[in-house]
């Protein structure tokens, strides 16, 4: 029997779900390898009471999300978190800084909509339930998503890349931004994107999260050597990694 899969979206831009449909050449083949039991974006129907694999996109921002995740975790034997929001809090995590009530008032004024009654500071999925597989990135790389999905179906261990991006960037023969005194988060960010941004002339913004093997104190020294404030590394990391819990 093929695995029954549900796709669940918390607070997100749906971009990683869009990336799941953005493998047009393989989409139908991929869908043929499992039973798609629920995917609100692509199909009518209700969330079933039984399934095997849950793919979760988005950050946790409400009490309803917490309840949903607990239910999903109790039902699914395998939980896959996709995208920076779900993996480390990502951009939504920026809103976890400072006073949430003040922040909310700055957008809605004094008359908050009654429709969401259980707001919470944004957090990654792993802050609420155990996650079996992570697919990092903002957005996810479709090929990496497929590889993780395959590992999940085969019951292989979660093996996200541990190293920072710099080596891949050197292989791509990119000039280093630090030579021009410019900050780049490739020093500490998880590899696996083929250094796309740097290759296109943009410093790494850290969307794939802080690599397990990253040496943050050494990275701050690199900044100092190139005339930058060491704290600039942390300010830059806050963009995608405010709630990653690594620092």
């Amino acid at each position, binding site marked *: 029997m093929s695995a029954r899969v549900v796709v669940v979206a918390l607070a997100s831009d749906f971009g990683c779900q869009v*990336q799941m449909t953005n493998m047009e050449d393989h989409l139908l083949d991929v869908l043929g390898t499992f039973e798609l039991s629920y995917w609100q974006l692509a199909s009518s*129907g209700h969330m079933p009471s039984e399934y095997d694999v849950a793919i979760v996109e988005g950050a946790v921002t409400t009490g309803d999300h917490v309840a949903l995740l607990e239910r999903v975790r109790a039902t699914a034997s395998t939980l896959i978190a996709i995208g920076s929001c779900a993996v480390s809090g990502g951009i939504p995590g920026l809103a976890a800084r400072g006073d949430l009530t003040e922040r909310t008032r700055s957008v*809605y004024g004094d008359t908050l*909509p009654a429709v969401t009654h259980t707001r919470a500071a944004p957090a990654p999925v792993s802050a609420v339930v155990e996650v079996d597989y992570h697919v990092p990135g903002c957005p996810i790389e479709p090929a990496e998503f497929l590889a993780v999905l395959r590992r999940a179906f085969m019951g292989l261990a979660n093996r996200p890349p541990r190293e920072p991006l710099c080596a891949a960037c050197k292989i791509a023969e990119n000039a280093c931004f630090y030579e021009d005194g410019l900050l780049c988060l490739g020093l500490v960010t998880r590899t696996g994107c083929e250094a796309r941004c740097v290759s296109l002339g*943009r410093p790494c913004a850290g969307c794939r999260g802080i690599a397990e093997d990253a040496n943050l104190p050494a990275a701050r020294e690199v900044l100092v050597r190139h005339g930058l404030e060491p704290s600039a590394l942390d300010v830059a990391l806050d963009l995608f990694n405010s709630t990653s819990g690594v620092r």
Partner: protein
Amino acid sequence: MSRLTVEHVARIEGHGTISVEVAGGVVQEIRMDVVEPARLFESMVVGRRFDEAPLITSRICGICSPNHTLTSIKALEAAFDVEVSERTTLLRELLVYGSYLQNHATHLYLLAAPDYVGLPSVFPLAKTHPEVVRRALGLKKLGNDLTALIGGRPVHPVAATIGGFTAEPPRARLDQFTELLHSAARDAADTVELFAGFETPEFETGGEMLALVAPGTYATYDGDVCALDAGWCRPAAEYGQFVDEAVVDHSNAKHATVGGRTYLVGALARVNLSWDRLTPTAKLIAEKAGFARGSRNTFHNNLCQAIELVDCSQRCAHLCESLVDDTGTCTPAGFTVRAGSGRAATEAPRGTLYHGISVDGDGFVTAGDVITPTAQNLANLEADMRAYAPTVAHLPEREFVTAIERLVRAYDPCLSCAVH
């Protein structure tokens, strides 16, 4: 009194719940509850460096991220008084309009079409109508490939920056896309034919229609905002003076009005307002499909998206040709960071998108403002639901729900965007 709710309406982007109250067979109240949680993007840019604003606001939407990125960049360029090169403008037009292929193909085939063939999703069609699914995925892929060609990837473009682009595609690749886009125009024409063949309810919206309009082109990247009924045109940067936003209790997205009226943005508004600027082929195909300029039928938004696919394929092919011939540069123009504010708009696939930003003398953002297409459409969508529901109230519950969902999907709503 009985109450009917459709939680987490399927085949739309984001989370919304339709609630209907019926008494004595008469619909008393019908609402679109936008339960998508507050995302607070306008507060998240505050305190960050100005050049992070386009990166942050791009994450409002995974479908129209090129628009969020470029509208944010345009607002910053207005604040810093940056002039961009002709080549930069051409590339940006291609990035914006190219993303329509992906958005419209996804919405029309994956999200809307299942309603008209009585299926839960498009996937079963892969067996029964493989050529339709191949066409859908082909158009979608071409849009994604084009966005990736200009921006570096299909979602959240990388290369677009303040003043220009940090990298640009080789001319040979642009040349290849000219051919691909010309052939896509045929698939686009077939899409018009397909949607013209679906039975569309007779229904007229009571709302105003707004879209960007520009001389000599079908406006998507730039233009003035024009109102169809009221007949006025105003600079987009003045949006704060004519768009009124209000917080409502049942939605985490604010509702918008113009001159006290609800209004509609998106393909129907654009085709009505820029009819004379469609390519001759697109106009001819639209006429053959039975579309008449000035239509107020909300359901025609789908047909208009298909018509735009024709215009888009042809116009983007010409943009590629122009970029191959053009010898200019898109290297980012220099600028001086200074305290100031800027406001700008583009036409996202789903309608006019506004961004406003204020920056202090050190380049840190002090205020951000975003009004998305769906946030503008929501009040009109609800007005349409109230007007349309009584005409289908006699149907069995399941069919009634399908009819209402079909109206909702005609807007191609993005509730993630609407809440931002």
